[in-house]
């Protein structure tokens, strides 16, 4: 399958992240699955006119585009002209190219939250009128419209994240190449469920602190980041802790909260990112399907039950109390 990768209103971080994939030979892995890279801005040799020729061939349908991967927001500004990003050397807005190419693509993938929802570029007052391929924030639509379906029948596959995890991209590509990824494999926001059906909270190494509501109070504290430092792990659809980044890390192991970068609208949480909005001392953001009342009760109870180890370790940047040794076997 031919893979064509274009970047627009993003930071290129999704590509950089992809290149961190732990495969011994990423290119061979893709090639082995029958994926032929037509052009990738970071990897391919072709520059300039050669690229333009290729794009035009694809638009014409001369060169099939099986996997159209778009990284970066679709910048409709200023005033819908798309001129905030004219593809270099073409004098044509990127959104135009995308529309044309998407019309030809067998599968269209939005790589990263930028391409999926508009992402970080849509922050603030969204000066660039950024949106995703098929979503504008949490509103269906986006550049291609809610009704867009690629040639294979699937909507834009939103491999969202900022950046998106290399394995999310690779598995999506391989899944499509091997026919393992179908409509059932996408969630309501067209994200691949193999990662989107997880919560960042799953497998978080601070789980014990969460269980006892032993919370970090400041940056570098070891406790759970939800109560005070804005962690949205219990709501963020991603497997960042089950399938860690860069050999074993995650936002949370890096010492900072999950900002739910896979979610539409993550760029404007409505409060400072690394703080937790509260009402009457209760975080307003709760586990996505857990009623607040229960959370309140559990939180209070589990706070009372916090072992000294958990309570103390939550508020320092390194463990100061070790888990107790098991002196005797349970009866």
């Amino acid at each position, binding site marked *: 399958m031919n893979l064509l990768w274009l*970047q*627009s*209103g993003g930071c*290129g*971080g*999704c590509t*950089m*992240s992809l*290149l*961190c994939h732990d495969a*011994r030979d*990423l*290119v061979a892995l893709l090639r082995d699955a029958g994926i032929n890279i037509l052009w*990738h*801005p*970071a*990897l391919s*040799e072709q*520059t300039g*006119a*050669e*690229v*333009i020729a290729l794009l035009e061939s694809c638009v014409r349908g001369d060169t099939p585009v099986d996997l159209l991967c778009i990284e*970066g*927001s679709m*910048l409709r500004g*200023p005033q819908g002209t798309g*001129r*905030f*990003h004219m*593809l*270099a*050397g*073409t004098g044509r807005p990127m959104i135009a190219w995308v529309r044309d190419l998407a019309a030809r693509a067998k599968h269209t993938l939005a790589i990263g939250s930028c391409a999926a929802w508009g992402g*970080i*570029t849509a*922050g*603030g*007052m969204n000066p*660039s009128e950024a949106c995703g391929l098929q979503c504008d924030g949490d509103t269906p639509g986006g550049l291609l419209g809610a009704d867009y379906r690629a040639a294979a029948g699937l909507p834009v596959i939103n491999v969202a994240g900022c950046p998106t995890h290399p394995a999310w991209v690779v598995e999506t590509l391989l899944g499509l190449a091997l026919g393992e990824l179908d409509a059932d494999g996408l969630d309501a926001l067209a994200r691949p469920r193999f990662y989107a059906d997880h919560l960042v909270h799953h497998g978080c190494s601070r789980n014990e602190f969460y269980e006892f509501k032993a919370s970090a109070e400041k*940056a*570098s504290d070891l406790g759970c980041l939800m109560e005070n430092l804005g962690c949205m792990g219990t709501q963020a659809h991603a497997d960042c802790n089950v399938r*860690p980044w*860069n*050999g*074993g*890390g995650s*936002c*949370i*192991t*890096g*010492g900072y*909260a999950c*900002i739910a970068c896979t979610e539409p609208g993550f*760029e404007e949480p409505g409060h400072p*990112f690394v*703080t937790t909005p509260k009402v009457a001392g209760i975080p307003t953001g709760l586990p996505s399907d857990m009623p607040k009342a229960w959370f309140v009760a559990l939180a209070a109870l589990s706070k009372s039950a916090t072992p000294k180890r958990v309570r103390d370790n939550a508020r*320092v*940047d*390194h463990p100061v109390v070790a888990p107790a040794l098991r002196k005797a076997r349970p009866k």
Partner: protein
Amino acid sequence: MTRLVVGPFNRVEGDLEVTLDVQDGRVASAQVNSPLFRGFEQILLGKDPRDALVYVPRICGICSVSQSAAAARALGDAMGLAPPPNGEFAANLILANENLADHFTHFYLFFMPDFARDAYAGRPWFDAARARFKAVEGTATADALPARAAFLQILGILAGKWPHSLTLQPGGSARGIGASEKIRVHALLREFRGWLERHLFGDSLEAIAALDSIPALQAWKASRAPASSDFRLFLEIADALALDRLGRATDRFLSYGNYPTAGSPFFARGVWHAPTGTLAPVAHTDIAEDASHAWMADAHPLHPWQGDTRVDIERLGAYSWCKAPRLAGEVVECGALARQAVDGHPLIRDLVAVSGGNVANRVIARVLEFARVVPAMERWVRAIEPGEAFCHHGPMPDEAQGLGMVEAARGALGHWLVIRQGRIANYQVVAPTTWNFSPRDAAGTPGALEQALVGTPVGEGEQVPLAVQHVVRSFDPCMVCTVH
């Protein structure tokens, strides 16, 4: 006079367009544009100052940590916070990891593949170069990608993930590092060192760092077969293609300095004036951005603290979204070459003295940084004291100004922050490539690349002149940083 519009210019970070006026087989004039504008400086207005730590790294995926570091320092400056020793070491390691990874990515993925083009078929070094460096297909890709991924696991340990980590904080690092992490980072460093010594150099890092003159470099190169290591192969190619006579700009080199320990930077801060062989200090107050040729309103130069980013798409004479930063009105070049020159590395000083800033020297300086920084990283990781603080904390003032100056991979990165009523009133970023790939200023002075491209040969029928590509990519440009 032929005008060539070269783009999309890939194997750079972001989208780049270069417009060339070719005359007599050479570039007579060049204009550089980053065609993407997102408006980060606008996005940041009114935000909680700490939110900058979320937004600004996402200016660029390849120098995410650099932006994050600059933001943290700016916030620290505003809050009056400085990291504890552990925080410094952690921050240095995190930043160095990204910077070296950038160099690595540039050398193997962006720069060297240009020498594997069929256009160079027939050259004595071509077969080796093609086998090794051919884009996507070359062995270098297969070797370099996992090596880079493994190296960036240091960031996985120290900063959770990459790009876009929030670990770097105004007061240090949000990640406490224990003995286990120290050992693992050390192991990863040693592993990366091994790779470099085995594949890039075919020699120890210390040996490379010890090369103190052009003759020493030449002698080292001659000691083994060109294909015995990637650097030697580059040197071979550089000699063959006289890359040292390609892409020379103003020979004024800016470095903000980097990797402080106890406040003292590992790399010195200053401005190296090659023609005069003098080192001058950097006063950020000498910095002003000129938007005269950008699609921006209010084009007159402004210090970043006073800077304002407002789009004017119809601006006459504008051909770029990029502002034109000037240091005391002068065009400067930044990057590894600048850093090493400012820091006074003898080989680099020698090279610059002889041939100034050029394609070869820029690459050499970049490669040299592997040899100099990796050992430093090893020292920083060993210096970490598990159990001691990694982050200082303090309140965010309602009214403040902050400045964060960092050496990103590509050079001097500055963040200027103004806080009013507890919110961001102004946030201006001047990225390295903004310095290097700036358009003409109000005085009409071309930016560094624009100057460097003048004189570059353009082959017959070349739509995308190879030499131009060499020059452009030698700067390791990042257009998403340039225009944000």
